[in-house]
């Protein structure tokens, strides 16, 4: 690992984004628009907006970074830049962490903007701490990035990569407890939901937004999110081969 090469990679990824202002605008604006829609949908039932708003805020970056990373990595593989990078002194860790830093910064901007809107204008209650919500959103973005990176190894075309969004992400959103509380699920679904990383990300956000103490379960959630991120990064890193057939 080299700090210089990691940083160079992060700067490069951010520069690529800077040349694509439309993507940046979409990344920043879409979550705000969605959050505003949620607020309007539940205008007469503020309790529902309160229970969904904070978890959604923390999950937007997860979905966004999953898609962005799986497409970006696929482009690196297809364009030959990945092959060139891997013949230079750049380590696989440098590449992954460089991407992580760049996308975490984007996620921070994204989450901060939705937070300002939600907590400032839409009257959402941050519960324990608005800063903790933003930090969890960033952690979820890195989780999404790590899973996206891993998923991209199994896509040959951009069409396939786009389909991984519903395949990898939607089942997790259905199962994580956001739609139906886990204790109201059929036994096998509840068991399945325990295997899904987003369950822990959702639970942590839900606890932050709820009253009462966070409990040790909150820290377990955070630990699982961090652990799965590292695991996915390691698996994703293993798919970056210096030698290919």
């Amino acid at each position, binding site marked *: 690992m080299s700090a210089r090469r990691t940083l*160079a990679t992060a700067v*490069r990824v951010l*520069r690529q984004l800077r040349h694509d202002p439309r993507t940046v605008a979409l990344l920043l604006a879409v979550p705000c628009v969605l959050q505003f829609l949620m607020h309007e949908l539940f205008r007469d039932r503020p309790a529902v907006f309160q229970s969904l708003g904070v978890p959604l805020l923390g999950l937007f970056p997860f979905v966004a970074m999953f898609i962005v990373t799986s497409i970006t990595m696929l482009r690196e593989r297809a364009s030959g*830049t990945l*092959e*060139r990078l891997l013949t*230079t002194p750049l380590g696989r860790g440098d590449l992954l962490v460089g991407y992580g830093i760049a996308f975490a910064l984007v996620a921070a901007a994204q989450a901060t903007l939705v937070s300002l809107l939600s907590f400032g204008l839409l009257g959402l209650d941050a519960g324990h701490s608005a800063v903790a919500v933003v930090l969890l959103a960033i952690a979820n973005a890195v989780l999404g990035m790590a899973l996206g990176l891993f998923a991209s190894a199994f896509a040959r075309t951009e069409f396939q990569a786009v389909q991984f969004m519903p395949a990898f992400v939607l089942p997790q959103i259905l199962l994580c407890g956001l739609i139906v509380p886990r204790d109201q699920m059929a036994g096998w679904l509840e068991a399945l939901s325990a295997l899904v990383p987003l369950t822990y990300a959702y639970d942590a956000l839900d606890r932050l937004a709820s009253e009462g103490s966070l409990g040790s379960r909150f820290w377990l959630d955070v630990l699982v999110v961090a652990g799965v991120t590292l695991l996915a990064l390691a698996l994703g890193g293993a798919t970056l081969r210096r030698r*290919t*057939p």
Partner: protein
Amino acid sequence: MSAAVEVRGLRVERGGREVLHAVDVDVEAGRVTGLLGPSGGGKTTLMRSIVGAQVVAGGTVRVLGLAAGDPFLRARVGYQTQAASVYADLTVRENLHYFAGLLGVGGAAVSDTLALVDLQQHERQLAATLSGGELARLSLAAALLHRPDVLVLDEPTVGLDPLLRRDLWSSFHRLADAGATVLVSSHVMDEADRCDALVLLRDGHVLATGTPEALRRRTGTSGLDDAFLVLVDGAGEEA
């Protein structure tokens, strides 16, 4: 003294088919070596094996005395792939700046290399908007940034105008004169005369090696195009 690049009994399989059959090649330092032969003959595969990007089925590839792909070699080998592998959504300078950062060379190297490939006027242009020739030169520049000891260039002059081709070939010779090992592939035989040494590769076999002059003498021909045809016919008769 052993050659800078030493390939012995190299076998490579791609898609379940052997594409290099026990290839032996020596590439000497301080010279421009041309890797020539028809498309699909294994030139790219051989180059990928030398830079350590290719899974090989057998044989050895040694570069500067180390096994190809050795971490130490990554800062000393420059590789230009056939497709321009640069970031289309970055400017010319931003592309080079990134690769310079990875290779540990500074902004001066970026400016020098831009001048070398004659891209200074385009430095603020997005790579996506470059012409084919400009894009190829940008990709070449990324391989030259650190003035590598071993330079592996896969068809770097395809689609370039004659003037630029001449300039690039003299750059290759300047690098070789400074001690670098330069291996350049081409499927255009008229480029062979610009090389100090040649390796002719066809259907995964080395057909012939030597200086352009020696190959002409051996085949009794005046042009290298004819020399190649004679060699191919000869190989056919032996088989």
